[in-house]
């Protein structure tokens, strides 16, 4: 018999139990169910799977036992404001910092040599960092928000607040890298926040890119999860 507690998984995730604990609980229950079935079969029980179901417990009890334990709740349930409002900007700050450190390290180690100009790939790399920061960052952070929300079967309120916030922040925030083209020249890395007439347009573009992906994720999840 197929392990019959698929709906339990959805119920636990919707109730805010951490997906890590839910995954392991399901695996352990499935193993336990197999053991009980084997035991009933060996004892000559006419319906081993019925006996196993009876012994493993009612789905309501199995769900409640997990939901009642606050230690097993996901951060998305304990503090959604932290996950969706503080988490993405913090991640953005870390990515900015790492990008700057990596670029400085690369320029210092393999930058322009005496009498030579900067290699073409270095200029391209700086361009890629700039492009990534402007166009790909909102998508990346938006996808992370969407995946975290879907994994935990969250209602759309907090994920949408997070998505709007991150679209706004990534539209205001900028990181621009100019590598030195020859030895002795200065490169420049600028990081900051600014608003201009293009900001509203950028916010709109970012929202247009991230929101449909989030709603597509929601649509693709199993029907009973919604």
């Amino acid at each position, binding site marked *: 018999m197929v392990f019959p507690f698929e709906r339990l998984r959805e119920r636990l995730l919707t109730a805010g139990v951490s997906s890590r604990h839910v995954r392991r*609980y399901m695996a352990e229950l499935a193993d*336990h169910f197999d053991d009980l079935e084997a035991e009933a079969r060996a004892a000559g029980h006419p319906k081993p799977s019925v006996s196993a179901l009876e012994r493993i417990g*009612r789905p309501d*009890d*199995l769900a409640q*036992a*997990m939901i009642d334990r606050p230690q097993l709740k996901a951060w998305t349930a304990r503090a959604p404001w932290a996950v969706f409002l503080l988490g993405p900007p913090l991640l953005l700050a870390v990515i900015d910092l790492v990008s700057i450190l990596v670029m400085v390290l690369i320029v210092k180690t393999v930058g322009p040599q005496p009498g030579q100009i900067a290699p073409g790939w270095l200029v391209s790399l700086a361009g890629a960092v700039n492009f990534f920061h402007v166009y790909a960052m909102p998508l990346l952070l938006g996808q992370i928000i969407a995946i975290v929300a879907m994994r935990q079967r969250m209602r759309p309120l907090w994920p949408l607040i997070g998505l709007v916030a991150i679209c706004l922040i990534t539209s205001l925030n900028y990181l621009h890298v100019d590598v030195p083209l020859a030895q002795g020249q200065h490169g420049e890395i600028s990081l900051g926040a600014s608003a201009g007439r293009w900001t509203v347009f950028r916010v709109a573009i970012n929202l247009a890119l991230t929101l449909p992906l989030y709603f597509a994720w929601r649509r693709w999840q199993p029907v009973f999860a919604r």
Partner: protein
Amino acid sequence: MPSRETNPSFMSGVPELLLLRLLQDNEMYGYELVQAVQEQTGSAITLGEGVIYPVLHALERDGALTSRRKTVNGRSRVYYRLTELGSQRFADLKGNWSRITNAVSSVLKGAEHGFSV
């Protein structure tokens, strides 16, 4: 679906005590633990078998247990083991349990022999 009768709510905390005790000797997995509880209590204590796992997860989350996946006879299972913190927690729970059972016993003995004020 019919369900086996398990022990009532005053048993809350007992599964934790029993699991910590059983895991003092060996690392064990869920089904093994349920079997051991039934065997060692002469089936006087019957746990809803599936609900043992939330107790184990919570104990692990509190640092009283650690777990690892181990494959035995071709089957992968999650084995639990007691930590230092778990031993301490067991000692505390055991002490509390002894105090309560002694107190209840003395009340019951008093009731048998008649209370005096």
